[in-house]
């Protein structure tokens, strides 16, 4: 309702009009649209029965249905809201139910696909560490210090290296624990 533009709504009304797109072919139409978005290789071409219909109407309704599918997956609308939108656009009950069924079938795939879109900072996937003991340097006679060398591997293949003392490492671990606790607190509303 709020998240669809006027263009998409008019396209949906076209789609709901049975004279433009008949009820029987509607099922496969919706399936084709969902597959095109999630898995283009398996989708193939538009089913052949459709070429007999008016093609501009077909294309506009295709665009509108794709917009509806994508936006509904994005906002995670439940069946009732989806049914309300379709009623506003004068969809018959068979079309409505078949759309809701196909949509629910593909919903998780669509949401996974949407989840992958966007900026994702690199994650840490692996860590290697080494404990060194400095005995002497050319500046001072005795050093006798322990030092950790940590190298963090990210999921895009890059490595981040740093060295730190034991206290700094404990600091880091403490901060990580705080972050984990904050997430837990937020999850226990």
């Amino acid at each position, binding site marked *: 309702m709020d998240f669809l*533009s006027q263009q998409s709504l008019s*396209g949906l009304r076209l789609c709901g009009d049975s004279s433009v797109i008949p009820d029987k072919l509607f099922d496969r139409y919706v399936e084709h649209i969902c597959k095109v978005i999630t898995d283009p290789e398996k989708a193939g071409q538009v089913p052949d029965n459709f070429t007999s219909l008016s093609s*501009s109407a077909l*294309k506009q309704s295709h665009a509108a249905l794709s917009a509806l599918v994508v936006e509904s997956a994005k906002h995670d609308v439940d069946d*009732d809201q989806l049914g*309300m939108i379709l009623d506003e656009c004068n969809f018959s009950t068979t079309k409505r139910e078949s759309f809701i069924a196909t949509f629910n079938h593909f919903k998780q795939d669509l949401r996974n*696909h949407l989840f992958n879109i966007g900026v994702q900072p690199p994650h840490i996937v692996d860590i290697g560490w080494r404990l060194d003991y400095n005995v002497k340097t050319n500046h001072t006679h005795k050093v006798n210090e322990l030092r950790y060398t940590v190298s963090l591997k990210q999921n895009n293949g890059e490595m981040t290296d740093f060295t730190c003392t034991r206290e700094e490492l404990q600091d880091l671990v403490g901060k990580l624990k705080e972050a984990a606790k904050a997430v837990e607190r937020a999850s226990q509303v």
Partner: protein
Amino acid sequence: MEEVDQIILHSFLNIGCEFAEGLKSLKQLTTEDVIEASVKCIRTINPDFKMSHIMPPGMSARFRVGSAIAQACQNVGYRDSIGYETFLYSSESDIRKIFMFLVEKLPRKEGVKEDEVEATSVLKRRIGQVLREQCGTLWMPAYCKEDQKSVQFITENVHVPAFSKKNKIDADKTLFIYEQISHHDRLVPSILELNANGLAQSSAVLIQKEVSGKKVLKESFQWKQRCLVPDDLSLSSSFDEVIQVVSGQSKQSKQSRFAHAKKLQFTSTEPTFQNVSAVRPSVPKKPKHLSRERTNDNATKLESSTLLPEEMATTREIVEEQVEDGKEITVETEEERFEREENELKEVISQADQQQESNRDEIRNVEAKIKQMKLEIGELDSTIDEEKQQINLKEKTVHLLPNAEENIEKLKALVEKNSQRLIGLGKLWEERRVPLIEEIRELKQRGSASQVDTESKLEEIKTLRKRMKEASEETKKKEQLMKQLTTELESMKRDVSRQSYTKRILEIVSSIHKQQLQIQRVIADTRAVQKQINQMRGRIDRTFTAADEIIFKDAKKDVNVKQAYKYLVSLHDNCNALIQTVEATGAIMREIRDLEDQINAETKKNAEENLAKIMKDFKEMKKENAILMKQLKER
């Protein structure tokens, strides 16, 4: 009574009286507890009441405290008369009444805050839900997880043809949207962008219909700004602050700033309609001689006037370079020359404008004159036609003059024929006309009636549609409310005692109802009994008078009858005496019952204990007074 006590003690716990934890009834409260509880209650009701809740040791101070609390209770609105004695020397029923009143007056803060907190709490709950789901899944090393490739949000320009039933030919050329995209990963972003553009355009149109391009841009930016995270969230703001700002955002919509466009999380490679106007194409610099030759449009005037300062700027740069070579005099003359030329051009332009205006005026005048001339020509033509007709007539009459009489008779016969034919045609016409007129009238009436019908039906349809929409909106709202409330109910703690309270209240109400029925039955019974008594009374009197009369008549003659009469009279008297004693015993029983009730009420008030206490306190006060007097005298 227990439940009432429990409620009162529970509310004491809520306001902070710790003594009330283990207690079960108000009997167990000591005077100190009573004073502490009442002070805290009054303080929560009315924060201005400043008194410590600990009872002072001195008797006079205690007296003052008691009277102050009594005064405060009356200020809050307690109807009955109370004084210091109700708090210091309390009886159970009195303090029960007072505490019930105070507890009712305690402000209920809970209901008010809920509305404000609702939006943030709903958001927090959803976040918590999602986080819980994610925390519940097991950790898997990265190489075990599915391929999660991240796709960048890159869009491409997509075109959707508009459907019209007329042009079916052109649409075949446009492709489906998924065929218009070069790379599959860009399909979903392009769909999202198309939708968002449509929404932004429609919101811009709705807000203002002014056609100035800049204002439309601003409004669409405002809509976009509403969907974005605002500026005042710093990186170090806490989770709660973030949620408050995000959920409370609808109230604070700031003025949009162009800078926000850069913060859009989506980047688009194709320039959208906003960006196009923001990025102005650079105007190529025209040489001066071309600009001078241009005609007198306002646009070019602006352009030329804006060009000249640009040109001046560039020439100044050139000039500055030349200064380094050391040609200072040429600087001044060139500038002067440019200024002169600019002034000349401006004069030329203004002159040309004036000429243009004068030309236009002339053209208008000439056009007006042309119109006038055409009208005159038309009039002259019509007069010419009339004159021609008259000439023809006169020619014909001149021809006919030689055979004057014959022609006159012929003409008369013609005239008669024509008039007769006219009359005949007139009759025919009348015959046809009348039914047609009636048909017209009928059809008009039917049309107007049907129109009225259609109008009323249209109005009915409109009202019905409105009602349908309203009803559907209400159902949507109510369903949403219901969902919210059910989720809240599930997450809220269950107060078992509340249900039991309501059950008990209902039971009490039903028992009271039954009791009332019983009371009414008893009243009806007593009335019936009273009626019987009255009837009997009446019968006694009547029978006595009847028997009296009869026997008295006979008594004068017969001695036995006299004796019988005497017995009758004594019988009557004795029975009367019996009845009176029975009534007296009944009255005494009632008085006994009343007195017993009074005794119970008095004993409840603990009058003896309180009197003892009062005597003790009175003695203490006397002692304190004596001490104070001594102190005064010593000074």
